[in-house]
């Protein structure tokens, strides 16, 4: 999926969510992918359906537009 992609659904704009997960308590959460959805509920359902192939002990989602970027590749 392209960052910042938006499309219209009946209920409003769909936005991109980043999906994070980990398999053991000792490892940190890491990004496993992303989903596009119009609200948090649907994003949670989509993330679980799309990335549930592995035995994660934890999975979280974050709206991409809520992430505050300090710098990007080539900007440091």
């Amino acid at each position, binding site marked *: 999926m392209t960052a910042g992609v938006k*499309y219209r*659904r*009946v*209920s409003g704009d*769909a936005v991109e969510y980043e999906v994070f997960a980990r398999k053991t308590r000792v490892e940190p959460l890491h990004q496993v992918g992303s*989903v*596009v*959805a*119009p*609200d948090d*509920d*649907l994003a*949670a*359902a*989509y993330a*679980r*359906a*799309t990335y*549930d192939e592995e035995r994660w002990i934890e999975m979280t989602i974050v709206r991409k537009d809520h992430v505050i970027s300090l710098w990007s590749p080539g900007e440091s």
Partner: protein
Amino acid sequence: MSELSGLVLSIADNKQLLGLRYAEWATRAPSLEADIAAAAMGLDDLGHSRVLYGCLEPLGDDPRRADRETDPASLSALPYFDQPWASWAQFVAANAILDTAFTVMIEACVNGSVEVLQHRLRKMLTEERYHFLHGRSWLRSGIEKGPLDEAWREAIEWFGPPDGDTDALHNEGALSMGPAELRARLEERLETQAPGLELNWKTWDPKRRRTRPGAIDERTFGMLRGLEEKRFAPAGTTKA
């Protein structure tokens, strides 16, 4: 057939058909994510049906008879699943209302007094959380009234009449909720009231938990029985 075994068989048959109908939309939903969710929810519900069928023997009274091999009307599934869904609205209404109705009944089993159901069905509630989020979100986006009203009607009929089997199972403790509580719980979860419905319990079939006659389509029944495999076998390799 004990009332509890008949109810568990009905949950199993409905979840099997719900899973199949979900899966039929795995390449037809409005987005790739919704396609994947349809496939995943289909797998979940087919898996749940297997667990539920597996509860029948420990319950001590497996109500499945030989006619299930030949008569599609012997299955205890709702009219909503008789034919493949023709619209996304039908998918959403089933996802939001019927799937949640089955979950509410599973809650009543898990919180009831029957040990095998308490233990084996609990994990389903975790998985169903995502079906609920999916259905509720799409429901909020707005769908046609027809499939919604039909799903509500069939859900409330499926819970059973006011003085019927689920009421008796509630009174004896096997279920933590009776028909009135099941309906109230469904409305609470969906944050909405059921539409005004005139229910005719005179035509309600207690075995199939529905008021309308009918059965699943021939192709789906053939696929469930493995008969559809013959269509794909090389010529001359199938037995009559």
